[in-house]
């Protein structure tokens, strides 16, 4: 008989929750769960693998027009005139719009960005006109025929140029409507700043035996989503009803934004979410949506579909900002950190967008998961004539982790200490106080560091060595802590169908993190119900209850809590229905852990949840439907702008560590990452395979960040805005031996103890690889990506 080959899930479940690539360290759970904590096949897997998933560009309507944008070739120029005559003359063109048609600017923190450039362009690729036509060919041709007269302005190409304030990107910040969480400095290119003060850094430096200063630059990255930005809008100019089909991460914030831009009541705007072909923060902001709406309004309400091509995606959507950091650390001879001073400058691009939030999240993470008594952090959002910075998996914390972990290695070297030992000596434990003076409730960074190190065999490896082929080899390690956006709120509806199956309505978007599997897992566990009978409904803002955004690794934590609350209510409703059927008091019916609706006074009288549909208890009774809500406003202690000290800046900290082994060819300067060991404090692994896959994917992404990816600008001109010249790792670059440990250090407020893992897998990757390359080459490389050129012309350290 042929031997049955175990699938990874089966293997994982049979072999004590462990296979060669994954170890789950169970701590705080009793192990009685039957669905949660067990690997499940993702709910979205089969549709995606078989090609039936409907992505943004799959949406089509009868009578639909196609949109296209005219883009500025100049990074900084005044618009003198826009002539659309030739464009309008192209057969099939229905509408051409310019900035004057919809001059209302928008922005999450400060409304500094017009949907189409009005008086001047601030980055290469900025939209100066948009066209809707019967065919995409006609639309693109017409867009190319819009004539714009420009007066060129000096280009602010770098952070250095920006902070000189000689050329201002925005001449007058005061003209813009600004939220209370953004602090632009009038007469400068500073769009916002962040200042954190804990203790007294000068005192801390005075107490130190050694002061180490270094700097680090993380280059500008593109999300390179497989699915480029796209939106299809139908906007009725008479009723002002606006419908938008889009693959977006934040349906409700885009809904509010569109309502505001077009001056219509929120309830008239409907966002219908398609599947997302890659998010990673890149689909957090509105890009195609408002332009498609504007075109549809002008086209008498005909649907307009606008899809960006790859070059537009690079040039004119969003990116991860460049950041230049400076760090100064005070440390005692024994390795105890006494003070840390961090100054940072973000190249935010031409508009502020969500950079203040990136800066804020990075600020709270800038010293890492370490006990540092005296901290001062000053960081600035600097405007330049580059494409717009935004959220990118990790929300600034990846860059911060690279900074502090590079610095920890330099400190260790100067103290002649083992790098892992220095980290273990200073890292936070449960009950310590963090950078804002907050009590750290659950923090397994010590355990993660040790496990990540063990996963690459850290103790048996020297800092650097030469292999038999002559390659320079090295090991490196990095850890991090990341907050999640707080306060935030969410809600869900759980509805029982007539046959006893469940629908969950949640606006947490499935974008690869597996939320449409983990939410049903919570419901299945809570109800003791078969997972196959529970699914998440499509997202539509007219029917789906509110969720803030799908960002910040928050969905499983927040929406999971909401789902559990709703399930408790569903159980109560079912007990009530059973009591009607059994003609007994509703207090005489209970919902058992085994999923029985059972009479307390007569245990023989019971219905299993799987039999509810055919039991008839729901027949012509009030439908079974429940809401669940969760929010963190009640626990949040708003960190004051002055110093950012707070007893609870975040509902949870995400913690983890990764270690890398690299080999560097000294002739070609090419780096091969041979091993990665990861360990993440995820609270609870709801779907362990899903956790593994997210971390493995993140590791490959991090290899790109450490060694390959950067957007190259020369005087405001993007040089490598395509998939050939912007180097993303391919499958052939992904053969890294990985071993991953999931540490279950449960969070008291998380559903089943869960924390977040969507972003964390990526946060320490580039830092660990960079540290390994630095060790292999005996060089303090101070920027990412570390390229062969840097390696061949390196300056080795000699202290």
């Amino acid at each position: 008989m042929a031997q049955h080959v175990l699938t990874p899930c089966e293997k994982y479940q049979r072999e004590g929750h462990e296979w060669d690539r994954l170890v789950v360290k169970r701590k705080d759970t009793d192990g009685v769960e039957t669905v949660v904590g067990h690997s499940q096949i993702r709910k979205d897997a089969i549709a995606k693998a078989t090609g039936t998933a409907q992505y943004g560009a799959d949406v089509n309507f009868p009578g639909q027009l196609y949109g296209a944008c005219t883009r500025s070739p100049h990074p900084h120029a005044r618009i003198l005139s826009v002539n659309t005559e030739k464009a309008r003359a192209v057969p099939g063109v229905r509408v051409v719009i310019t900035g004057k048609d919809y001059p209302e600017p928008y922005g999450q923190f400060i409304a500094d960005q017009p949907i189409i450039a009005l008086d001047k362009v601030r980055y290469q690729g900025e939209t100066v006109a948009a066209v809707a036509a019967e065919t995409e060919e006609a639309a693109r041709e017409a867009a190319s025929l819009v004539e714009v007269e420009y007066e060129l302005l000096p280009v602010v190409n770098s952070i250095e140029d920006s902070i000189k304030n000689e050329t201002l990107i925005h001449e007058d910040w005061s003209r813009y409507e600004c939220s209370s969480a953004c602090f632009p400095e009038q007469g400068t290119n500073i769009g916002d700043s962040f200042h954190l003060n804990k203790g007294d850094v000068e005192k801390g430096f005075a107490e130190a035996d050694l002061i180490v200063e270094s700097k680090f630059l993380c280059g500008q990255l593109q999300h390179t989503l497989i699915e480029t930005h796209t939106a299809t809008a139908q906007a009725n100019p008479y009723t002002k009803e606006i419908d938008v089909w889009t693959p977006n991460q934040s349906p409700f914030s885009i809904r509010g934004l569109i309502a505001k831009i077009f001056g219509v009541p929120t309830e008239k705007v409907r966002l219908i979410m398609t599947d997302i072909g890659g998010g990673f923060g890149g689909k957090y902001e509105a890009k195609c949506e408002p332009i498609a709406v504007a075109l549809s309004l002008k086209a008498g309400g005909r649907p307009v579909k606008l899809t960006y091509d790859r070059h537009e995606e690079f040039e004119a959507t969003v990116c991860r900002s460049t950041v230049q950091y400076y760090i100064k650390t005070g440390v005692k001879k024994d390795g105890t950190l006494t003070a840390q001073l961090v100054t940072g400058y973000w190249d935010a691009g031409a508009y502020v967008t969500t950079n203040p939030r990136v800066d804020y999240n990075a600020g709270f993470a800038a010293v890492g998961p370490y006990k540092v008594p005296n901290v001062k952090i000053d960081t600035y959002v600097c405007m330049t004539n580059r494409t717009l910075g935004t959220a990118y998996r990790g929300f600034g914390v990846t860059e911060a982790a690279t900074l502090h972990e590079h610095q920890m290695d330099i400190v260790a070297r100067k103290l002649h200490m083992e790098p892992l030992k220095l980290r273990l000596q200073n890292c936070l434990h449960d009950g310590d106080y963090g950078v804002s003076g907050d009590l750290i409730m659950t923090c397994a960074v010590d355990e993660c560091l040790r496990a990540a190190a063990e996963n690459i065999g850290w103790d048996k490896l020297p800092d650097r060595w030469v292999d038999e082929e002559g390659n320079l080899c090295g090991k490196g390690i990095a850890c991090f802590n990341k907050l999640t956006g707080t306060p935030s709120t969410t809600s869900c509806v759980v509805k029982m169908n007539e046959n006893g199956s469940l629908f969950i309505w949640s606006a947490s978007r499935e974008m690869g993190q597996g939320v449409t599997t983990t939410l049903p897992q919570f419901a299945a566990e809570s109800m003791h119900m078969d997972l196959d009978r529970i699914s998440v409904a499509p997202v539509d803002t007219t029917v789906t209850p509110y969720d803030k955004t799908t960002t910040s690794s928050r969905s499983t934590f927040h929406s999971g809590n909401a789902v559990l609350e709703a399930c408790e209510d569903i159980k109560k409703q079912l007990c009530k229905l059973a009591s009607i059927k059994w003609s007994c008091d509703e207090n005489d019916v209970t919902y058992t852990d085994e999923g029985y609706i059972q009479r307390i006074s007569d245990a023989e009288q019971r219905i299993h949840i799987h039999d509810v549909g055919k039991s008839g208890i729901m027949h012509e009774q009030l439908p079974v439907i429940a809401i669940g809500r969760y929010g963190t406003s009640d626990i949040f202690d708003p960190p004051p702008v002055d110093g950012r000290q707070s007893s609870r800046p975040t509902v949870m900290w995400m913690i983890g560590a990764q270690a890398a082994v690299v080999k560097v060819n000294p002739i070609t300067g090419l780096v091969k990452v041979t091993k990665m060991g990861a360990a993440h404090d995820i609270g609870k692994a709801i779907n362990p395979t899903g956790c593994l896959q997210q971390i493995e994917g993140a590791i490959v992404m991090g290899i790109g960040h450490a060694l390959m990816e950067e957007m190259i600008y020369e005087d405001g001109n993007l040089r490598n805005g395509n998939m050939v010249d912007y180097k993303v790792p391919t499958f052939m670059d992904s053969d890294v031996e990985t071993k991953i440990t999931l540490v279950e250090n449960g969070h008291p407020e998380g559903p089943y103890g869960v924390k977040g893992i969507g972003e964390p897998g990526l946060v320490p990757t580039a830092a660990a690889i960079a540290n390994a390359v630095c060790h292999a080459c005996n060089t303090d490389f101070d920027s990412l990506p570390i390229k062969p050129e840097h390696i061949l012309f390196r300056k080795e350290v000699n202290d």
Partner: protein
Amino acid sequence: MLPKFDLYMPEDFVEACALKADGAKPVAGGTDVFVNMHGGKDKSARVLDIKRLKELQGQRFSESGLDLGALTTHREIEVWDEIRSRYYAMFQGCSQVGSVQIRHRATLGGNIMNGAPSADSIGPLLVHDAVVTVAGPDGEREIPLDKFYTGFKKFDIQPDELLTRLHVPLPPDNAGSAYYKYMRRNAMDLALMGVSAYVEIEDQHFTSVRIALTTSGPTPMRSYSAEQVLLGQPVSDEIIVQAAETVEREGKPRSSWRSSAEFRTRLLHDITIIVLHEAVQRALKPVALKAEAIPMRQYPGLDGLKPRPKMEDVSCSM
């Protein structure tokens, strides 16, 4: 987006020549043409699919060498045993183009006629002394590949002629070849720099040498002066380093946003040494073993010739 175009798929060679003379764009695998059309760089309104022309089809290995139809795909070269044992540089060049999917479509003829300075099959074909056949309504002409290029994306070909075949002579048993493609990732990448070498060795002397550079000028090109440095000389590390220095002078790399001239110069020098050593090692092997990969190692001769960072802490066995 891919614009609309008229597609012609003739089976008759003369008809194809007439269509080409009339301005239709020849396309074989389409891995360059359609990408360029998609990106708006190529605005051809008429496309001539030449895949049905039997004059361009087929490939054969015989006593006289390789007879390759212009439609021979990179994948066919990659998986062909005789290529590995006799024309190793061609295997190295063709197997590193794009991805497996692309190599199944992309043709040798297309790689030549696209004219990219980074074309991976050309350097190996140049050092293997390939001769191209072009044909038109008036008959055929044979042209050595290095004379076929007349400038950046320019060829010795008439508007009504098509590249039909390639002939690559059979190397003797004492020959060896190698190609090194320098790229930033392991697939889907263009050569930032490439060096190909072919050597024949008799009594420890170079009796025949050909070196070609990729991405070092407007076309893939031979480095004749470096070949002269080696020809007739006894095989030694010193003479190989001298050849590398000549290549470096002849290559004259320039700075661009992709990389600095300093970096390219150094790579050109070091890679030439690596490739020559590999070709020499392969030449010395019996034919049955020539198909084996020779692991890259740090050859003598790379040390001490350029000011290098000090490596006190590293016990480097160079």
